């Protein structure tokens, strides 16, 4: 054994842990930890100390507790599970705080019990994206997926637990999730909720028992639909049900065969014409019998369904009538106008009949179509979605739903989903509606903190409308010079003659070449002409620091530079956007739209540039992630993300002021680069060279001390990328 691989001695461990936990200040006892570690081999010591250090960045007590527990559990836990356990504790701390996180560390046995779930279960986060798309592909109402305590639907949202681990293998657990999602979709699609839960079971002495029987019978009906509509999935569903039964047998759980009445009911409910009324009618037949509960059957939550449906039915009725009224206007029907065939004299006698909508079956089994005054019309997608949703709730579209709303009949607040104002988030009850959640890189942990930053896009109040003109007057000469600089970069179509390759023969060159060859000289091979095409395809995003430290000349410099940039970029014809960023803490990250890619450089945009004012702090990573997403939606060959900032990332009394902030920014820039974006930073901080090369790379940042230099630097960056 080499000396370097010797285990750490007691004294070394003691010194290291005392330093690690700063025992003089924290009063934490480390002797017990050393006792546990000293008898382990070097590799294990390094593994435990490494994780203890990573957890230390989360919380000192969690890290301390971790060493105590991990030494006890070493024989029972694989390293992979220990890592998962530590990460789970850190995540719990992020989401719920110290006590629950300490409980995760202390209750290692319960974690061990759930290790199977962590190893073979499928997490909601893993399946959400695929299953959301999967359920979107199925017909019917658009359904959302969300995490819940159990598996149920309220008829709009499908709830799945954090981890699904009912079966032994993870692939089967994924199948189970998929089957449950499909089952809940079938409930909404095939009328399982067209029942008045309040009255339908009122006469049964045991309502819960009747509901359970109803749900089991409806499951039989839905199974038949699954078999007809999704035969491949139905095969998988049967397979996982068999798997579960086998597991139960192995565990010694006795499976008593079901009463024959269930088979009889299955026969009735498997016919394509079986409805929810047939299900209700059969409930008395099976009351009191043991109830089948296949593994994919989800929980029936009648209260959630009723509440959700009542709200939706009323909202959709109003919404459809309003949409139909809009449709009538768009199609040129105007109830105020008399029809053309009515003569003037008769105008007063005859009342104008409003246009009439109805739903009509296209052909046998071919679905329904919307008909206006006896003519089929193609409604817009949102109206189609509404009609579909209404038909799922009611079975058809009630005639009163098809009467276009009169002017002012409804208050818009009744049918427009009430959205909480994100501007008011700090005035009343804190909420995260309308906000974007972003992860953040914790370099010490070497993994992301999930949904850590809460970012909101806010409107920037306009500033002095005359500001831009003042800047243009002040920098007239400078802007002219800049225009020339940028125009020099503007490429134009031009015909290049005497090329060795090209679209066409260059007749002049050919004549000369033929003359040369007759003369005995060597013939040139440059006989073509080629049309050089100007093919600029640039999109540039300016990310403007609006932190409090920009107050004074830096803020003025930023605004003046932006005015100049806008003036010249308009000439260049490239697409560009400008957003400001600021915030306080991770829950209050803010982005201000100054100019979106689609906004024109008009008086409103100019007023927003004038309105750029210093605000709070500089949490860079989240702003980079958000604007990267925006920039990636633009079609362009070259995408630039230019940060205008006065200094390094920092936040209010926050870890972000340390290396953590620099590393998160660096990681966010890596993520941007991976999507093909070129990030640059133009800084006014003279200490930038200490950290900017690490974040942006040596060639991708510049430091300036004068506003006039800023647009020129942008021109340099442009030239570098496009030449």
């Amino acid at each position, binding site marked *: 054994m080499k000396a370097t691989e010797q285990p750490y001695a007691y004294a070394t461990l003691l010194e290291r842990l005392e330093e690690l936990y700063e025992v003089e200040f924290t009063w934490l006892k480390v002797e017990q930890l050393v006792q546990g570690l000293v008898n382990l081999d070097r590799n294990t010591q390094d593994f435990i100390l490494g994780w203890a250090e990573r957890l230390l960045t989360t919380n000192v007590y969690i890290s301390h507790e971790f060493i105590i527990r991990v030494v006890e559990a070493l024989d029972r836990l694989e390293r992979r599970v220990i890592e998962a356990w530590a990460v789970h504790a850190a995540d719990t701390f992020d989401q719920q705080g110290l006590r629950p996180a300490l409980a995760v560390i202390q209750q290692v046995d319960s974690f061990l019990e759930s290790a199977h779930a962590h190893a073979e279960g499928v997490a909601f986060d893993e399946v959400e994206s695929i299953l959301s798309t999967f359920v979107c*592909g199925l017909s019917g109402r658009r359904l959302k997926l969300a995490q819940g305590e159990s598996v149920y639907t309220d008829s709009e949202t499908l709830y799945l637990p954090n981890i699904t681990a009912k079966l032994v293998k993870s692939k089967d657990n994924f199948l189970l999730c998929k089957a449950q999602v499909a089952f809940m979709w079938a409930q909404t699609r095939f009328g399982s909720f067209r029942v008045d839960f309040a009255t339908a079971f009122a006469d049964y002495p045991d309502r819960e028992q009747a509901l359970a029987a109803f749900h089991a019978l409806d499951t039989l009906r839905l199974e038949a639909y699954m078999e007809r509509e999704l*035969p491949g999935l139905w095969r998988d569903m049967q397979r996982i049900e068999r798997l579960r039964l086998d597991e139960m047998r192995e565990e010694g759980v006795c499976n008593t065969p079901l009463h024959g009445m269930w088979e009889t009911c299955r026969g009735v409910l498997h016919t394509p014409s079986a409805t929810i009324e047939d299900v209700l009618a059969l409930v008395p037949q099976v009351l009191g019998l043991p109830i089948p509960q296949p593994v994919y059957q989800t929980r029936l939550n009648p209260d959630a369904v009723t509440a959700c449906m009542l709200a939706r039915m009323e909202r959709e009725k109003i919404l459809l009538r309003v949409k139909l009224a809009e449709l009538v206007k768009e199609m040129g029907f105007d109830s105020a106008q008399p029809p053309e065939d009515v003569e003037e004299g008769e105008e007063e006698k005859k009342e104008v009949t409003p246009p009439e909508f109805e739903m009509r079956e296209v052909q046998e089994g071919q679905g329904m179509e919307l008909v206006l005054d006896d003519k089929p019309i193609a409604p817009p997608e949102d109206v189609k979605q509404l009609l579909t949703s209404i038909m799922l709730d009611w079975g058809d579209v009630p005639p009163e739903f098809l009467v276009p709303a009169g002017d002012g009949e409804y208050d818009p607040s009744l049918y427009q989903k009430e959205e909480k104002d994100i501007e008011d988030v700090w005035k009343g009850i804190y909420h995260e509606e309308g906000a974007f959640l972003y992860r953040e890189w914790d370099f010490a942990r070497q993994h992301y903190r999930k949904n850590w930053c809460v970012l909101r896009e806010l409107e920037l109040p306009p500033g002095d409308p005359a500001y831009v003109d003042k800047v243009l007057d002040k920098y007239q000469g400078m802007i002219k010079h800049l225009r020339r600089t940028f125009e020099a970069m503007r490429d134009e179509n031009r015909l290049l003659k005497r090329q060795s390759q090209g679209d066409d023969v260059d007749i002049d060159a050919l004549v000369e070449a033929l003359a040369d060859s007759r003369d005995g000289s060597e013939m040139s091979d440059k006989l073509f002409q080629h049309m050089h095409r100007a093919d600029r395809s640039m999109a540039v995003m300016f990310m403007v620091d609006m932190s409090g430290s920009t107050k004074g000349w830096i803020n003025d410099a930023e605004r003046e530079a932006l005015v100049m940039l806008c003036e010249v970029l308009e000439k260049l014809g490239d697409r560009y956007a400008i957003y400001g960023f600021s915030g306080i803490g991770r829950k209050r990250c803010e982005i201000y739209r100054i100019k979106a890619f689609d906004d024109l450089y008009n008086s409103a945009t100019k007023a927003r540039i004038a309105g750029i004012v210093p605000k709070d702090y500089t949490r860079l990573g989240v702003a980079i992630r958000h604007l990267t997403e925006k920039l990636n939606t633009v079609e362009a060959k070259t995408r630039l993300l230019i940060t205008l900032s006065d200094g390094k990332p920092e936040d209010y009394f926050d870890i972000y002021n340390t290396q953590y902030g620099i590393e998160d920014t660096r990681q966010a820039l890596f993520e941007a680069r991976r999507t093909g974006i070129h990030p640059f930073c133009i800084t006014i901080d003279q200490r930038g060279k200490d950290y900017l090369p690490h974040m942006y790379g040596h060639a991708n940042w510049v430091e300036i001390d004068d506003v006039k230099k800023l647009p020129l630097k942008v021109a340099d960056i442009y030239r570098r990328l496009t030449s």
Partner: protein
Amino acid sequence: MEKEPYYVPVNNEITLFEAAYANHLPLLLKGPTGCGKTRFMEYMAWRLRRPMITVSCHDDLTTSDLVGRYLVKNGETVWVDGPLTRAVRSGGICYLDEIVEARKDTMVVIHPLADDRRIMPIEKLGQLLEAPDSFCLAISYNPGYQSVLKELKQSTRQRFVAIEFDYPKPALEREIIMHETGLAPAVTDKLLKLAEMTRNLKDNGLEEGASTRLLVHAGKLISKGVEPRAACQGAIALALTDDSDMIAAINELIGALF
């Protein structure tokens, strides 16, 4: 066109085309990819007994590629007509497919052909070709791919009579797939269901759902003995997108059906 191409009319497109042709009006075919625009053009060429020259447009297409160019042969320059010139001279049909893919400056060359002048100047020859009555210009594009970079200029689009295409109604699409692939009705219905599912994903992560063409491709693979799931994954899921999550989701939909 010697043999009648298989084409089932969806609406009144044949009547509209014939009326426009009789009035020497150029045509613009709009519709999603793989819904039958090119097949329709082949059918109309056969029906009108005119030769058809198809040009698949791309962003390197030059005016010379369309009109013609000088080439060198045995030390002499020789003029060679481009496809558009050939179609004008022969009084045939010139079909410019996916017109928005071509550069805007290249497309200007069709303007004098697409209004009442119906002429085509060939500057390099100093000629002015007049299109015969039987000449027809047709262009096609997919409005779904419209972006700032790829949109048809108003000066171009306002010269054409437009015919809008969409995927055929299910019954018709069923008939088409069964005719083209020889598949049994049960498998055809599953393919149609899959098409509907992918079309539900349009604007939810997919630019376009599965076209009739893709269904025919998958159907042909199945009728040649390829396992249906593998056929749909290859001909539909992978053809529609490169996004791994989206491919996985479409594969789940395929697995749910087959």
